[in-house]
């Protein structure tokens, strides 16, 4: 009976709410994860060729980086509102918006990662008879992986947080519950959904960090010794390496800002 009353009393913390609406919470979480992850995955698929193109042709790099930065600056609510006439009220609005945001971080980090590949490694591979594709996939991309994964973590965490705004078109995952709770002044629903959002972001961040450790076993031994020095150098040069982007955005960034940049709006 006392647990029933936390619903009627509209308490902030209410285990009864979580128990009675667990299905609703699960569905919202599933939608949230689906939207956030698919947009980061698409973002990665788009960012990789863009970064490779930008590296190949210097004339292409400026416009790509400029355009993605401009897109990053556009507030999320405006972005979804602008995409709404194109896609109607659908999940595509949210996914497209989040893809566009993730491009900024991903393209920058992939470029920085590729630029950090030592010339010696590249020349050694060429000397061993590696073709351009094998060079890319077996030498350059693995060496660029730490920067890429750092970008992927930032992009994923931002995407999870920004998915909530998708509630404006009805596809915001846990954001829908927050929106609904806002209209009905349902405190425990808002708090539970918000806490789940933060939890999701943290879980994905830790998961990606683990994947990165597994993918780059060679970075682990030198990590403690060189981590600090490397981060200082990256930021001092004004390069958008993982750490510098982290400092920005930080950015948000928006940013990207980002930039860093921290992109939370």
């Amino acid at each position, binding site marked *: 009976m006392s647990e029933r009353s936390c619903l009627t009393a509209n308490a902030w913390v209410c285990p009864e709410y979580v128990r009675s609406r667990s299905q609703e919470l699960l569905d919202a979480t599933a939608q949230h994860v689906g939207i956030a992850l698919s947009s980061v995955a698409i973002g990665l698929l788009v960012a990789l060729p863009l970064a490779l193109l930008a590296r190949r042709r210097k004339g292409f790099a400026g416009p790509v980086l400029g355009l993605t930065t401009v897109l990053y600056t556009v507030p999320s609510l405006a972005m979804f509102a602008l995409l709404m*006439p194109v896609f109607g009220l659908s999940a595509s609005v949210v996914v497209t918006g989040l893809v566009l945001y993730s491009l900024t971080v991903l393209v920058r980090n992939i470029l920085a990662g590729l630029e950090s590949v030592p010339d010696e490694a590249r020349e050694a591979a060429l000397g061993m008879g590696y073709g351009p594709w094998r060079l890319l996939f077996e030498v350059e991309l693995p060496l660029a992986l730490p920067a890429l994964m750092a970008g992927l973590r930032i992009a994923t965490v931002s995407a999870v947080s920004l998915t909530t705004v998708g509630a404006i078109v009805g596809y915001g995952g846990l954001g829908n519950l927050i929106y609904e709770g806002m209209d009905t002044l349902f405190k425990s629903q808002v708090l539970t959904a918000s806490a789940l959002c933060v939890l999701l972001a943290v879980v994905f961040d830790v998961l990606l960090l683990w994947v990165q450790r597994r993918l780059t076993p060679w970075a682990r031994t030198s990590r403690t010794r060189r981590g600090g020095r490397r981060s200082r150098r990256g930021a001092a040069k004004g390069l958008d390496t993982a750490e510098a982007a982290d400092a920005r955005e930080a950015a948000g960034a928006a940013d990207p800002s980002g930039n860093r940049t921290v992109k939370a*709006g």
Partner: protein
Amino acid sequence: MGAMTDAFGWLLTGANWAGAAGAGRRLGEHLFLTAVCLAVACAIALPVALWLGHIGRGGALAVNISNAGRAVPTFAVLVLLTLTPLGGHGELPTIIALVLFAVPPLLTNAYVGMREADRDVVEAARGMGMSGRQLLARVELPLAFPLIMTGIRSAAVQVVATATLAALPGGGGLGRIITAGFNTYNTPQVVAGAILVAVLALLVEALLALAQWRFDPMRRRRRPVPPRGPGVPRRLRMPAARARPRPEPARRP
């Protein structure tokens, strides 16, 4: 493209700009909120960051606060604050949320800027007998200026974006044009509001970028050093990086 034409039609209609819920009033609210919250956030974050950077402590705090800022959804914080008793005080929840989300980029960038100030130059200045205060004001601050401004830029963009979201729980600002359009199924109005918000965000970013370039105390010094003469081999020329971080007071007293 029809939606765009309709949106520009909406923007060019004078009646939409007038009145208590008109775009003019909303733009004013948005600018007011942005300016006030950015100023408050700077007043809170910059002294802390500059001091921490100067004494070289609290680096983990500065970086983690930025990561946390990214993970917490702005929308959730706005709604949570509105549902607390603070919600009864007009724009107060919006202002608190805006300041909260402007602090991380300011803090992190200013801190990193202070720490990244060329250690050789800082050591040299200390060796010349500069006091902590002189070091901070004349050496570290000018060197950290670009990153401090980067922080202010991303904070400003963040504030403009968050102020837009404040419309969802009923706050003022340009976001209200978008939400009102959604509620009345008025697509031209939704797109028009979005255009206004996007243009405002880009303008704020561009203006601050211009200010960063214009007021950079090291701008003149950062140009590459011209060659000493036609006969000097490249490797004997003064490297630009060495010549760059030489602040005014580093001259002989």
